[in-house]
């Protein structure tokens, strides 16, 4: 088997095992956590397609998730509910009501279109300038969502999305996202983009059009973020722009960076690890609070421990757990080594 196929197989097996496993256990809480995990996978793997291949940290990703979620909301909230949920909605949109699946694709496309329209000039920037502008982009997207009341109900909570995202749906989308990321990484654009990540000067001297390469990856990442946002919207069913800001950004960046941004394997492993850690810590936190251990409440344990974990990984293994090789490549090399030895 080709190493790249082996990678796909292993990663998809991880998703299926988590999905089927938590379904078999049959505890609703686990079902919810697993669905959340799948949605995170779509987002983190989406972030990997840009950040992993280009080497540029993007803070804007969650903003595009928001675009997907709101697009999906406007398209799927039943028209009789729209009067209440979105009182200022433009009249031509009030009658619109499409299936959540279609809305999910639309969410991805809207996010991708916005990314395509605004990101090209940013793609010329590298290093710190690129990071800071992506952060500014997040602020812009957040502010727009917070204030475009006609479409988002402003800073108030928007409710009324049909709850159509269940574990199998989320897992299926996660599978597609992983495949898309693996295919993109091995595509011509993916390979040249990775070359530019390693050495911009050398890649340009070979004739690589770096801004155009980054731009394509950014659009793909935004598409996946939009799809993830729509998926999440139909899972949580009510949200406000707050859901698409700093805390969430930090969480998905942590997932990707801890797992290893350069590999899709890293994105998957990081998402699983951080989700487990996050849920475990949250459980511990509420348990401590319930037993009123010591004086007063324990607040922020989860965030602090995750932040410290991120710092620790960055110091001990700066490239993350899977810094350069996909799991399939690692297994293939192990096998080859064993064969030469015997």
């Amino acid at each position, binding site marked *: 088997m080709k190493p790249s196929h082996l990678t796909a197989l292993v990663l998809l097996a991880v998703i299926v095992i988590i999905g089927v496993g938590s379904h078999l256990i049959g505890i609703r809480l686990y079902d919810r956590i697993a669905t959340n995990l799948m949605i995170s996978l779509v987002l983190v793997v989406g972030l990997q397609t840009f950040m992993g291949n280009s080497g540029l940290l993007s803070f804007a990703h969650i903003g595009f998730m928001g675009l997907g979620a709101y697009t999906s909301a406007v398209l799927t909230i039943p028209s009789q509910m729209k009067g209440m949920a979105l009182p200022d909605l433009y009249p031509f949109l009030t009658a619109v009501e499409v299936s959540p699946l279609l809305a999910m694709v639309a969410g991805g496309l809207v996010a991708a279109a916005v990314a395509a329209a605004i990101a090209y000039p940013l793609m010329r920037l590298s290093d710190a300038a690129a990071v800071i502008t992506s952060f500014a982009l997040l602020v812009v997207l957040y502010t727009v969502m917070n204030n475009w009341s006609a479409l988002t109900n402003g800073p108030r909570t928007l409710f009324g999305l049909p709850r159509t995202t269940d574990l199998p749906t989320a897992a299926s989308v996660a599978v597609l996202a992983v495949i898309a990321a693996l295919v993109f990484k091995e595509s*011509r654009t993916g*390979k*040249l983009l*990775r*070359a530019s*990540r*390693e*050495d911009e*000067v*050398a*890649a*340009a*001297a*070979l*004739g*690589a*059009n*770096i801004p155009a390469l980054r731009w394509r990856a950014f659009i793909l990442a935004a598409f996946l973020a939009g799809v993830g946002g729509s998926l999440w919207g139909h899972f949580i069913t009510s949200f406000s722009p707050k859901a698409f800001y700093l805390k969430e950004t930090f969480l998905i960046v942590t997932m990707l960076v801890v797992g290893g941004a*350069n590999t899709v394997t890293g994105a998957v492993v990081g998402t699983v690890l951080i989700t487990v850690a996050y849920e475990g810590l949250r459980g511990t936190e509420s348990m401590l609070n319930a037993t009123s251990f010591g004086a007063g409440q324990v607040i922020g344990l989860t965030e602090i421990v995750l932040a410290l974990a991120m710092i620790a990984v960055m110091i001990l293994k700066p*490239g993350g757990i899977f*810094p*350069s*090789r996909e799991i399939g*490549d690692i297994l293939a*090399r192990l096998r080859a080594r064993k064969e030469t030895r015997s």
Partner: protein
Amino acid sequence: MSESRLALNDVSVEFAGLRALDHVSLAVSTSEIVGLIGPNGSGKTTLINAITGHVKLAAGRVSIGDTTISGLSPREIALQGVSRSFQIVRLFNAMTVFENVEAAALAKGTPPDEARERTRTLLGEFGLGEKADELGESLSYGDKRRVEIARALAAEPRFLLLDEPAAGMNDAETETLLHTLAELPKSRGLGLIIIDHDMSLIMRLCHRLHVLASGRTIAEGDAAHVRSHPAVIEAYLGKGATHA
């Protein structure tokens, strides 16, 4: 491939008022190897950077045939058929040797299957077949140099500019490199400009030499002519050495 010439016409480059290149003219055709030599700081690397668009010209013009390439970006110049290596190796470290070379072919718009095939052939030619799956960063210095040259060739350039290709190689490796490079003009129909401090390599490999000192051309011609040129001896050994 049709014969064409890469030519520098009266090229000057300035860094903050300092003349790094002072009215230098040089030409190389697609069937010859030109050695670029001179003491440290004489402007050799700057000359390569001037060709590839990595520094701006203060005056003069670089052209391939009738096409002016000076003023274009490094990327556009690369697409005109100019490949280079760097004085300090610039490999794609977290990518495999195979991907390093493949990327160069892909950057030129080669179809993926053909790019893979060409990569395989080149790695074979450079004795890197066994290392195809290793990461760039894990290689020895000599291997890194070889990958860089293979990568430059994967773009199928008309002109190849090598900045100290033998630096860090041992004698045996240098000897192998010499044979590989000597074949290139004939086998691939390309022109080579080589900078190196290994004089025996340069003298044996190059058809013509171009000597720079303080950004100026002080001599050009074949090895015998250059070696006995008083200005060259003076530049390398100091004033008065000619009389010694």
